[in-house]
């Protein structure tokens, strides 16, 4: 207190200069942005300020969705699409993880396959549609194959990156305790690579959804992709947007599911 008096006027609190640079969750803002955009579109299309050629009226899209739901045609389209997604993604992700782990573990596999995967990555899947018809037919198998092919390459890349990133110290520890090669792979490498594999899964599954439309170009009469394509060819914007909305919701849902899987499988992380 004596000090305080001595320094008199020059005494002041230390200025605060920390904080910030840590964006925090603002609940509801995301929803508000969606609602605002939708209201804007609704108002624009109603007032004629946005031509019906440019955007459908959101309320009409909603009506289309409701109609899809009540008429039961939603399931008619959703069930085949989901089964194509599931089978295709399981094949692609399964093979991708297996290949990625092999690349991560064996020098020769790595040397042989990494350039191949790098060359396959930028190949546009729609360009190969005519070939897929020949290779896999126009039934479900070509749809599975297309989705599997599309999810395979990103999964491989994510997986071998994840294996590469497994702490070598843990592996040396395993060796120092005389664990067998197979034990090390099973108990150290695979769990250690799991976070990377799961975050690769997020991307692979988003790609799978995107490829659904391409896959259903091939002789699909039902399916969300086919529904979108038909809406596009009829220039029926309400249906087009309804279909896109479904895919978008599906994507958000799948990403949420992966998030839940991460919460369970990666409980050991913070």
């Amino acid at each position, binding site marked *: 207190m004596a000090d305080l008096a001595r320094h008199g006027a020059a005494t002041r609190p230390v200025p605060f200069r920390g904080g910030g640079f840590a964006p925090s969750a603002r609940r509801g803002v995301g929803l508000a942005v969606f609602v605002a955009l939708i209201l804007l579109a609704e108002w624009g299309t109603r007032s004629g300020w946005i031509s*019906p*050629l440019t955007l459908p009226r959101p309320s009409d899209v909603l009506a289309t969705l409701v109609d899809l739901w009540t008429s039961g045609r939603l399931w008619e389209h959703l069930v085949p699409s989901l089964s194509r997604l599931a089978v295709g993604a399981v094949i692609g992700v399964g093979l991708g993880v297996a290949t990625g782990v092999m690349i991560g573990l064996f020098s020769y596999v790595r040397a042989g396959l990494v350039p191949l995967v790098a060359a396959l990555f930028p190949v546009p899947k729609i360009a190969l*549609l*005519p*070939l897929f*018809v*020949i290779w896999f*037919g*126009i*039934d479900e198998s070509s749809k599975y194959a297309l989705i599997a092919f599309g999810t395979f390459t990103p999964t491989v890349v994510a997986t071998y990156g994840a294996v590469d990133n497994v702490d070598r110290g843990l592996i040396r520890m395993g060796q120092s305790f005389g664990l067998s090669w197979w034990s090390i792979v099973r108990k150290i490498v695979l769990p250690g690579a799991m976070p990377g594999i799961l975050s690769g899964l997020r991307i692979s599954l988003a790609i799978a959804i995107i490829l659904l439309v391409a896959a259903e*170009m*091939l*002789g*699909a*009469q039902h399916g969300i992709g*086919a529904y979108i*394509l*038909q809406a*596009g*060819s*009829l*220039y*029926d914007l309400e249906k087009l947007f309804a279909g896109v909305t479904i895919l978008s919701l599906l994507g958000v849902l799948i990403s949420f599911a992966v998030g839940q899987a991460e919460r369970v499988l990666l409980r050991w992380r913070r």
Partner: protein
Amino acid sequence: QDRKIVVGALRLTSHAASFVAMERGYFREAGLDAELRFFDAAQPMAVAIASGDVDFGITAITGGLISLAEKGAVKVIGGALQEEKGIDGQKFLASDAAFQAGVKTPKDLGGKRYAVTQPGSSFHYMGAKMAAAEGIELEYVPLQKVGAIIGAMKSGQVDGWSIVPHIAKALDGSGAVHIIGDVADYLPDYQVTTVFTSLDNTVNERPLTEDFLKAFSKGVADYNAALVDRTAGEEAQQKMLDLLAPYVYPDDAPEKAKTSILNGAMRLNENAGLTTASVQDQIDWFKAEGMIKDTIGFDTVVDSSFAPVL
């Protein structure tokens, strides 16, 4: 001062009139500074007319076109390509596998897999009309692209299809696919493609639209005379083939291209005349299939004040 127009085109003989009018200066004579824009499918061309990027186009009557017409974006103003008894037209095809299994006529396709690009496409219409006439059911398989359909036909994964004559003949020649019938037998006077433009051009640019049709019709006349009726003589035919080859088959050897063009020559409508009965039938079919709204009528789609009605 020439007025600038953009004409949408596909690299098909059905668009020959535009190429002829372009090459022989008919557009210029009509005071039009025309530019050709090429597309690889009819649907984007229709959308491009709606968006104002293209002024005139030629395409089959599809669900998409009708839907755009309903939104007040486009209007059919004349006819372009037509089936005609006696002139080689579109063919029904069977894959080799189906053919070997006994599909020798269109009727034999009952219960089989029939390829279309998309629901509501002209392929769908042709198949459906044939099936109705024969009293059979078809399983329609949408494959989006002609290339995908060809692949599926060759590998026997679909059984039937219909396509313009030169592609049909080329495929038939390879032995992988067989011609089993003519579309004209089921759809006489089928108005395969039409000339269309934006609603704005029919209302506010009437003279421009009329000038376009005039020039276009000259091209039609030349083409029909040279390749369909063959009244213009051998030399005119050769000249016409020379003119068209680089447009239709830019990447192929000229001789091969010319054979294909000759094989594919179908009647173009004189003066862009429109077979209204066929158009009405197509619109009715779309309605029956539930692909377009019931409120759509002939006048929603067609402005018949520009070209003769057949």
